[in-house]
């Protein structure tokens, strides 16, 4: 396999009720990435695009074909990836595989979503399509409901009293909003929150309250990935994709032997760590899938940053901030940066790549000396994909 590098990154503002279409947002992120990489449409050999609910939000399917041609990449193969909130990470993993194999030298990859166009009731319905439609949706399961079930199970299984878990979950949201105010692309760039605001917000699915939950969002992000040889021509700051992982899960109830662990994440991240030859202790920063505050704790444990039932202590001790043992979601995460689901994985990879290049000083949120970063994305109730990104190869 050949080495593969990210040579360009692009990221739109994440917003609510944005004025632009999914195609327009993707094209803005893509051209930013192409400019950074100094590539023209003629250099792009394939397009991989994460997009989940274009059909519902805009009445638009097969968006990838229109995007390719709008960008001037006439007639190139373009493929849409649908893995709920993990869609763009699946797309990046495939871009990596096709470039590593030698089939392509340069691939444009990313995602776009306009979730707020659906409104909250339809968005809640469509997001629930990432659970088992026949055997679990009839009970009225929602996405917050899925993580609410895990939050109560977490408290009971690990003997973390709900009062303490409540405080830990609030700390997660407070930290995300703090860093979100430093990210000019964040949906909540003007909004800090207090622990009291989080713990007193209206209940969505007990015990999860409004500020435990990520918002519905519109936005896009894109990357140009290239073979090592091509990357050397294009940039003096390549960020290598050194490990990738992906794993699937059965319906939530059938994950019973492992819950509240998400077993697929443990499988996926092991693939990524092993391929890169690193472990959790080597990771300098992580963007993980904090769709809900409890999801951050569970993810941090599944990724190996804490023992089961202990991840909250990372936030309590400030270990997840810049300067801590494992800086997590310094972008503001899904919670404060926003979560346009088809774009989220590309946004996370863009963020980690920019951190590893040392681009974040101007925003006052650079993780100094970071060399190895981890991306973690969860789709529905259990598609997981992970990426290890490195500058020191």
């Amino acid at each position, binding site marked *: 396999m050949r080495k593969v590098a990210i040579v360009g990154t692009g990221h739109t503002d994440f917003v609510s009720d944005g004025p632009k279409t999914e195609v327009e947002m993707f094209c803005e992120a893509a051209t930013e990435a192409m400019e950074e990489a100094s590539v023209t449409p003629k250099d792009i050999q394939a397009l991989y695009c994460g997009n989940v609910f274009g059909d519902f939000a805009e009445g638009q399917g097969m968006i990838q074909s229109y995007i390719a041609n709008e960008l001037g990449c006439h007639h190139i193969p373009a493929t849409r990836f649908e893995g709920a909130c993990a869609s763009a990470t699946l797309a990046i993993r495939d871009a990596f595989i096709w470039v590593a194999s030698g089939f392509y030298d340069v691939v444009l990859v990313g995602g776009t979503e306009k979730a707020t166009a659906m409104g909250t009731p339809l968005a809640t319905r469509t997001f629930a399509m990432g659970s088992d439609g026949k055997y679990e949706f009839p009970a*009225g399961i929602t996405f917050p409901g899925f993580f609410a*079930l895990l939050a109560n199970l977490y408290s009971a299984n690990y003997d973390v009293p709900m009062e303490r878990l409540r405080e830990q979950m609030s700390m997660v949201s407070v930290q995300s909003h703090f860093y979100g105010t430093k990210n000019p692309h964040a949906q909540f760039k003007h909004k800090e929150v207090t622990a009291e605001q989080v713990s007193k917000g209206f209940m969505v699915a007990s015990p999860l309250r409004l500020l435990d939950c990520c918002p519905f969002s519109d936005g896009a992000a894109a990357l140009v990935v290239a073979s090592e040889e091509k990357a050397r021509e294009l940039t003096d700051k390549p960020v290598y994709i050194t490990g990738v992982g992906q794993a699937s899960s059965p319906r939530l*109830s059938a994950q019973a032997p492992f819950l509240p662990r998400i077993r697929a994440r443990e499988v996926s991240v092991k693939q990524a760590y092993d391929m890169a030859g690193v472990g959790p202790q080597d990771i300098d920063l992580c963007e993980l899938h904090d769709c809900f505050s409890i999801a951050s704790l569970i993810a941090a444990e599944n990724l190996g940053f804490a023992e089961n039932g202990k991840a909250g202590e990372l936030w309590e001790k400030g270990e997840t901030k810049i300067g801590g043992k494992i800086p997590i979601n310094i972008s503001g995460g899904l919670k404060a940066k926003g979560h346009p689901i088809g774009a989220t994985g590309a946004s996370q990879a863009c963020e980690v790549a920019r951190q590893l290049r040392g681009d974040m000083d101007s925003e006052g949120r650079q993780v100094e000396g970071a060399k190895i970063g981890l991306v973690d994305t969860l789709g529905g109730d259990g598609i997981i994909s992970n990426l290890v990104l490195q500058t020191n190869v």
Partner: protein
Amino acid sequence: MEYKLSFKDYHKALMKNKLMGLKCKACGTITCPPQMSCRNCTGFDLEVVELTGKGKITTYTTIYVAPEGRENEAPYIIVLVELEEGPWIMGNLYDMDPARADLDLIGKPVELGTRIFPGDKYSDGPAARPVFRFTDGK
């Protein structure tokens, strides 16, 4: 290979308050809701069996924000129940005020009843929904 216990057959039985599952002829594990392979050993040699519908609550949540078309159902309680025969299934608990549900529910013995989700424009028809009540009559 024929699907042993289709959604339609599972649904029809549940409408008569019978919970059907699949027993693996190789390892004896019970799988429910149905799927193609044994959840334990991945074998395909499964037989349809009726389950007791009895179990205990392993976790719960009260949903306050419902999906489109189901707003008038909220608030409602969702539970995961570990059945006597081993598998966990998702259902509702209709036996108490949803606002008063708390962690004390975990471990409580329950038994099956049935209601129906009439379906919406995306669901390809109705689906029986397992609902549970406390077995100790509480």
